[in-house]
C-alpha cells in the first residue's frame, strides 16, 4: 500500500512538473503576443537588425530544393546576418501535413501557408508582415492572404499561364516573333508542320488532366478582365458564345479546335505519353504545349537542350494588348506563437528571399516585386499585363463552383469538356459553335437554379 502511494505521489509530481514546463515554455516563446519588431515595407536588408540572434525553423513544401538551393540561400543570408540560424524542413505531403501541424501552434517559425487556411483564421496563426496599403506599392499578388488591411502572407513566387514552346523549332520554321493572336499562332503551327518534323502542338490528350490546362486561359489571359471568372462568367448570359472579337473563352477553345481540325496536333491523341512528351519537347520533336509556367523547369530538365525551352503568353490580344492570368505560388507565413526575435528574423529572411535571393529568376517564375527583371524563359512576358483574378464577393464564394458542377460543364474540374473539343475536331462534327451552344444551355439552366 505504501509503495502504491509513493508511486502515485511520484506520478503526480511528474505531471505537475510537466505542466510547469509547458507553461514556462509558452511564456518564453511569447504566447502569441509577440510581433516582429519591424514591417516588411520599412525594413532594410543588410542595415537593420544585423546583430540579431535568433533560431528560425522554416517548413517548406519544396523537398527538391531543401538540400541544395535553399542551403545556398541560407549561407548567403548568413553573410549579412551571421547570428540568425535557419534550419529547413521539407514535407512531401505538404498541404495536408502542414494544416494538421498548424493547429498545434508549435511547428516552427516560418512556413508556407497552406491554402486550406481561410482568411478569417489567418490572425489566429500568423503574424502580420505590415499594412497592405504600404506593401502593395512594391509587391504584387498579396490578395490571397490579406485580411483587414494587413498582409499575412508574402508569395514566394508567382505563376503565369501561357504556352511552353521550343524556341529552336519555331526558329527553324521561320517564326521569329512570338505569335500574339490565334491566327498568328495557328500560322506558326502550320509553318512548323510544313518546315520541320516536329509535332506543332502536342495535346497530351491521353493524360487527361493536361486538357484541363486550357481552362486556365478563359479568364484573364483571353479577356484581360480580372473580374471575369467571378463576374461575367457567373452572372453573364451565354458566356461561351463567340464574341466575334477573337477573345474570350470561345477564342481559347477555338485555337484547340482549329489546331486539331487542321492536323497540327499529334497523330493519335489517345496514346500520348506525358513523361515522354517532356523529352520530346526538349529534343525539338514537339513545337509547343499549352501548360502552366510550372511545367517549364520540368521540360528544361528533361534533356540537354534546356536553353531551347521558352514560355509565351497565350496568343490572344485584347484591344491591342496582351494579358496573362497569374497567381501566387505558396505564401510565406510567420508563426505568431514564436518569440519576437525569431519572428523578426523570419521576416528579415522573407524580405531577403524576395528582394535579394533571385529565387523567381532561378526558378523561372514570375517575380512578385514590381518592376523586377523577368527570367529568360519569361522574356516574352515583358510588356504583358498580368491579370490576377479578383476573389468572389462576399456571399458568392461558392457560386462559381455550384454552377460549374450543376451544369456539368466542369471548368477546371472535369477535363472531359476539353477532350470533347478534340474528339469533335477529329470527327468533324459537331462544330465548336454547337458544342458551346450546349454548354451555354446547361450553364444558363444552372445559373437559374443557383440564382445567379
Amino acid at each position, binding site marked *: 500500500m505504501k509503495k502504491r502511494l509513493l508511486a502515485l505521489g511520484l506520478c503526480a509530481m511528474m505531471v505537475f512538473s510537466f505542466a510547469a514546463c509547458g507553461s514556462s515554455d509558452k511564456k518564453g516563446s511569447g504566447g502569441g503576443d509577440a510581433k516582429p519588431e519591424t514591417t516588411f515595407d520599412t525594413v532594410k536588408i543588410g542595415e537593420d537588425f544585423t546583430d540579431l540572434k535568433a533560431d528560425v525553423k522554416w517548413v517548406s513544401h519544396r523537398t527538391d530544393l531543401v538540400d541544395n538551393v535553399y542551403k545556398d540561400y541560407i549561407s548567403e543570408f548568413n553573410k549579412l546576418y551571421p547570428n540568425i540560424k535557419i534550419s529547413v524542413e521539407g514535407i512531401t505531403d505538404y498541404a495536408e501535413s502542414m494544416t494538421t501541424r498548424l493547429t498545434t501552434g508549435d511547428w516552427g517559425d516560418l512556413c508556407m501557408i497552406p491554402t486550406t487556411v481561410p482568411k478569417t483564421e489567418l490572425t489566429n496563426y500568423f503574424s502580420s508582415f505590415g499594412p497592405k496599403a504600404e506593401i502593395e506599392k512594391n509587391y504584387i499578388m498579396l490578395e490571397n492572404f490579406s485580411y483587414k488591411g494587413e498582409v499575412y502572407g508574402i508569395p514566394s513566387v508567382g505563376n503565369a499561364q501561357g504556352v511552353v514552346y521550343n524556341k529552336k523549332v519555331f526558329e527553324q520554321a521561320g517564326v521569329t516573333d512570338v505569335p500574339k493572336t490565334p491566327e498568328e499562332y495557328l500560322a506558326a503551327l502550320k509553318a512548323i508542320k510544313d518546315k520541320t518534323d516536329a509535332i506543332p502542338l502536342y495535346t497530351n490528350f*491521353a493524360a487527361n488532366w493536361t486538357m484541363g490546362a486550357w481552362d486556365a486561359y478563359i479568364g484573364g489571359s483571353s479577356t484581360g478582365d480580372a473580374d471575369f471568372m467571378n463576374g461575367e462568367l457567373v452572372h453573364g448570359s451565354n458566356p461561351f458564345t463567340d464574341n466575334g472579337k477573337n477573345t474570350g473563352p470561345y477564342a481559347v477553345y477555338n485555337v484547340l479546335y482549329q489546331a486539331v481540325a487542321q492536323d497540327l496536333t499529334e497523330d493519335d491523341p*489517345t496514346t500520348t505519353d506525358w513523361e515522354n512528351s517532356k523529352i520530346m519537347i526538349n529534343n525539338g520533336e514537339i513545337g509547343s504545349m499549352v501548360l502552366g509556367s510550372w511545367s517549364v523547369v520540368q521540360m528544361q530538365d528533361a534533356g540537354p537542350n534546356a536553353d531551347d525551352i521558352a514560355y509565351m503568353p497565350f496568343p490572344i490580344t485584347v484591344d491591342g494588348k496582351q494579358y496573362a492570368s497569374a497567381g501566387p505560388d505558396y505564401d510565406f507565413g510567420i508563426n505568431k506563437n514564436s518569440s519576437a526575435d525569431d519572428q523578426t528574423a523570419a521576416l528579415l529572411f522573407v524580405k531577403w528571399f524576395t528582394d535579394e535571393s533571385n529565387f523567381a529568376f532561378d526558378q523561372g517564375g514570375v517575380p512578385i516585386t514590381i518592376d523586377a527583371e523577368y527570367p529568360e524563359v519569361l522574356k516574352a512576358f515583358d510588356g504583358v499585363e498580368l491579370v490576377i483574378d479578383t476573389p468572389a464577393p462576399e456571399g458568392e464564394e461558392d457560386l462559381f463552383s455550384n454552377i460549374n*458542377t450543376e451544369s*456539368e460543364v466542369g471548368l477546371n474540374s*472535369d477535363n*472531359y469538356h476539353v477532350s470533347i473539343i478534340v*474528339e469533335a475536331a477529329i*470527327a468533324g462534327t459537331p462544330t465548336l459553335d454547337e458544342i458551346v451552344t450546349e454548354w451555354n444551355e446547361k450553364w444558363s439552366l444552372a445559373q437559374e437554379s443557383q440564382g445567379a
Partner: protein
Amino acid sequence: MKVSGNAEVLPSENRTFREWFRSKEIQQRVVIAAFIALPIFLLIMFTYVPFLQMFKFSFYDMKYIGPRKFIGIQNYLTVFTRDDCFKALALSGYYIIGAFIQLAIALYFASILCFKTTAGGVFKGVLFFPYLISGIAIGFLFKFFYTRGFVLDTVLSWIGFDENGLPYWLKDTSINNFSLVFTSFWKYMGQNMVLFLGAMMSVDATLYEAADIDGANSWHKFRFIMLPSIKQVIVLNLILSISGSLSAFEPPFVITNGQFGTGTYFVIMDRIAHQHSKVGLASAMAIVLMIIIFIVTIFQQVVMKKFFPDDEDGVSLTKRKKVKGKKVAS
C-alpha cells in the same frame, strides 16, 4: 458478462448453466457463432451499411459536402431521361459479345488441358497469369500495346500488313470498343478456364473409359459427358461475365478515359459522382444498374433451364418422386 454476473449471485444455478453451456450441442453453436460473427460483421459493416447509405443518397440532391435536400425519385427520373446513361449501357453489348467468345475459348482450352498434354502446367500458368495482374497495370500495358507504331502495329507489319493502312486502335470509333473488350478478354479468359478445368477434373475418368469402349469420339465425350457435368460452372461463369460486362470499368477508364465513345455506364457514373459532385444522381444510377443486373441474371437462369432441361434439378425431382412413390406404397 451479464450471465456470468448472474451466475455469481446465484451459485445454485451456476452449475446448471455451466453444464448447459458445456453440452455438445451448445458448444457447436458457440463455435459456429464465433466463426461466423467476424465475417458477418465485416460484411454488414463494409457492404450492407454503405449500400443502404447509398440507397438513401439516391433520394437526395447532394454533394460530398454541404446541405442535402430530399427530392424523392427525381434522381431516378433523371437517370431514365438523360440520354448519356442508357447510351452508355448500350456499350455493354460489346463486352457481352466479348464475354461469350471468351467463355467459348476458355472452354476450348480447358477441355484440351484437362487431359494429359505436353507442358500442360506451363500452358495453364501462361493462360492464367494475366488474371493476376492488376487491372490498372493492364490498362497501361495495353495503352502502349495499341499505340501507333508500337507492339501491335509492329507485330502485324511482320506478318505482312501495311503499317500505314492499319487503323488507330483507340481513336477509330468503329473499332476502339473492340480493342478495349480484348483487354478484358485477355485478363479474364484464364480465370474462366481455370474454373472450367476444376470442374472438368472432378468428372469420373471411368465414364470416359466406358465411352471409349462404346466407341464415342472426342466430340461425343465432350457433349455428353463433360458438358453436362460442368453445367453449373458454365452458368456461374456466364452470370459473372455478363454482370461484369454490364459494369465494365477498368479498361475504358484507364486506357481511354471513356473518350471517343468508350464511356461505359460505370465511367459515366464515376464522372457524375466525382467530377460533377452529383452524389445522389450517381447513387441512383448504381441502384438502377443493380436492378438491371438482377433482371438479366434471372432471365439467364430461365433461359439456361430451357437449354438444359435434363439437369440436376430434374434428377433430384425424379428422385423425390420415387421416394414419394415408395412412401405411398409402404
